[in-house]
């Protein structure tokens, strides 16, 4: 559905996107992650035909974005960052214009405008001037124009910026609802958002592909072992020594006293592998006569994966220099 091969974009001496390749099947939702300036927007602009790549290829629905720009763009609904809209127009009037610009006839255009306004929840604002809308509603208008014409591919650049938490949940569930029918790329630097809505994730940093794959895979594939969080009652030093002696535990860190239980303290253990180590830790603590209040595995969050990938790159880059 979407295929990006060896995509490179240079602006003068700066390389914004460097030999980026990934692909996405129909009905999947891809989270496009990266710190600011990583090349997310540049990649999206290439996909939507705003400018061509310096080298490499991008296909949408089998159409090359440079060779067959109209066919490629016909398949795409795009919502740019900051959602530039014609502020002097009214919502419905604007959406009718978008319909025309996308090549729909007037009847179809009107129909579609009505449909997308319902879908994103702005039907009540149809006759309001866009400049009078709040940021959240402008964002919805932006989403509405992308959805207009029912394109099979949606490219959304930071779609939930400007929403309050309630609206974010609403928009996320709207996007999640496209799973299976539309192919979606959404860029974000908000990781829980990606974890909540996307089936696939691509992480880029400084124009390079850092990781690609299903979200679960990325979490599991994190370097090193797992970690455990335990809440224990007893003398801190003795406990630390005890935990260090458990086979399989690499390091022990006391992360602070419990706010609720007197004399209890949280420890974070870096371990080799989960199951057995947790059991051994529990046994050791109980055998020594201390209180075991809580023991839970800590699975790596997407944040950790992200930080690990993006900072490692930075460090190795410095070494090379």
């Amino acid at each position: 559905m979407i295929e990006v091969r060896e995509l490179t974009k240079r602006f003068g001496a700066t390389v914004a996107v460097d030999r980026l390749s990934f692909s996405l099947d129909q009905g999947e939702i891809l989270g496009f992650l990266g710190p600011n300036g990583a090349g997310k927007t540049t990649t999206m602009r290439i996909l939507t035909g705003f400018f061509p790549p310096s080298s490499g290829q991008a296909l949408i629905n089998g159409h090359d974005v440079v060779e067959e720009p109209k066919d490629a763009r016909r398949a795409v609904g795009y919502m740019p960052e900051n959602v530039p809209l014609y502020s002097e127009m009214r919502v419905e009037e604007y959406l009718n214009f978008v319909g025309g610009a996308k090549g729909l006839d007037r009847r179809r255009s009107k129909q579609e405008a009505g449909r997308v306004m319902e879908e994103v929840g702005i039907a009540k604002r149809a006759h309001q001037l866009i400049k009078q809308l709040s940021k959240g509603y402008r964002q919805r208008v932006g989403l509405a124009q992308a959805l207009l014409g029912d394109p099979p591919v949606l490219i959304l650049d930071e779609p939930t910026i400007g929403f309050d938490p309630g609206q974010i949940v609403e928009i996320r569930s709207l996007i999640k609802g496209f799973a299976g029918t539309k192919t979606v790329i959404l860029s974000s630097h908000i990781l829980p958002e990606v974890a909540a809505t996307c089936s696939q994730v691509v992480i880029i940093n400084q124009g390079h592909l850092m990781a690609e794959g299903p979200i679960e895979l990325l979490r599991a594939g994190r370097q090193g072992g797992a970690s455990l969080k335990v809440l224990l009652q007893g003398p801190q030093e003795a406990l630390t020594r005890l935990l260090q002696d458990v086979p399989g535990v690499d390091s022990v860190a006391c992360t602070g006293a419990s706010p609720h239980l007197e004399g209890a303290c949280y420890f974070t253990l870096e371990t080799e592998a989960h199951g057995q180590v947790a059991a051994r830790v529990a046994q050791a603590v109980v055998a020594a006569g201390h209180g075991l209040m809580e023991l839970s595995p800590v699975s790596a969050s997407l944040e950790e994966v992200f930080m690990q990938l993006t900072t490692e790159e930075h460090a190795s880059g410095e070494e090379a220099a």
Partner: protein
Amino acid sequence: MRAFLAIYRREMAAYFHSPVAYVVLVAFLLLTGYFFYAGVSFYTLASLQVMQNPMMMELNLQTHLLAGLLGNVSMILLFAAPLLTMRLLAEERKSGTLELLLSYPLSDISVVMGKFFAAWSVLGLMVAATWVQIVLLAFMTPMPWLPLAVSYGGLLLMAGAFVAFGLWTSSLTENQIVAAFAGFLPLIILWAVGWAAPLVKPALGELLKGLSLGTHFQGFPKGLVDTADLVYFVLFIGLFLFLSIRTLEAKRWKA
């Protein structure tokens, strides 16, 4: 075609939903109205004198009144056009709406043409509004309708040339003021460059006259059509529309 119409309608709405079109239209009508009043007063005075002394000169409505008025109108259009065209592409570039517009499955040609025809329509409306004066005049004296129609055709053509040029300067920058000034200056120079013809070598003079907007417009207010003038204006419009499309395309590549 649908995309062209959508853009045309949006641009027209942008002119008429904002004060732009009204302000320009009112200012234009006040100015031309004043020139009309002054011209007619003077012509009346001249007619009275000629009635007393028929040998003095031969007075003709088209050459002695209308040609002057239309010349003034064309000068005012020269100043109004860049003000109307400066926002066409510069504003879209600055506000970022161009990025979204270009993500739709439409051609650069329909973007440029939609905008060109919208601005041309507004100028056309201004030109048409001066017919209030023509109608007033028609109550007082028989009108040379055919030459007059030719003159107005010439005015519209020239307005088209101004718009095409202004659209091109608007495609070059994201700053509207820059677009307007880059529109005025070359147009004024192109307009007046023919005046220098008698002062230079004959060959160069011919070249200057050939380039000059003003020289090619001269015939129209008198009711004269010269194919060369027609071709000049059509080519002028075509050239700058072509350049606008190319600039838009090039900006895509560079952006």
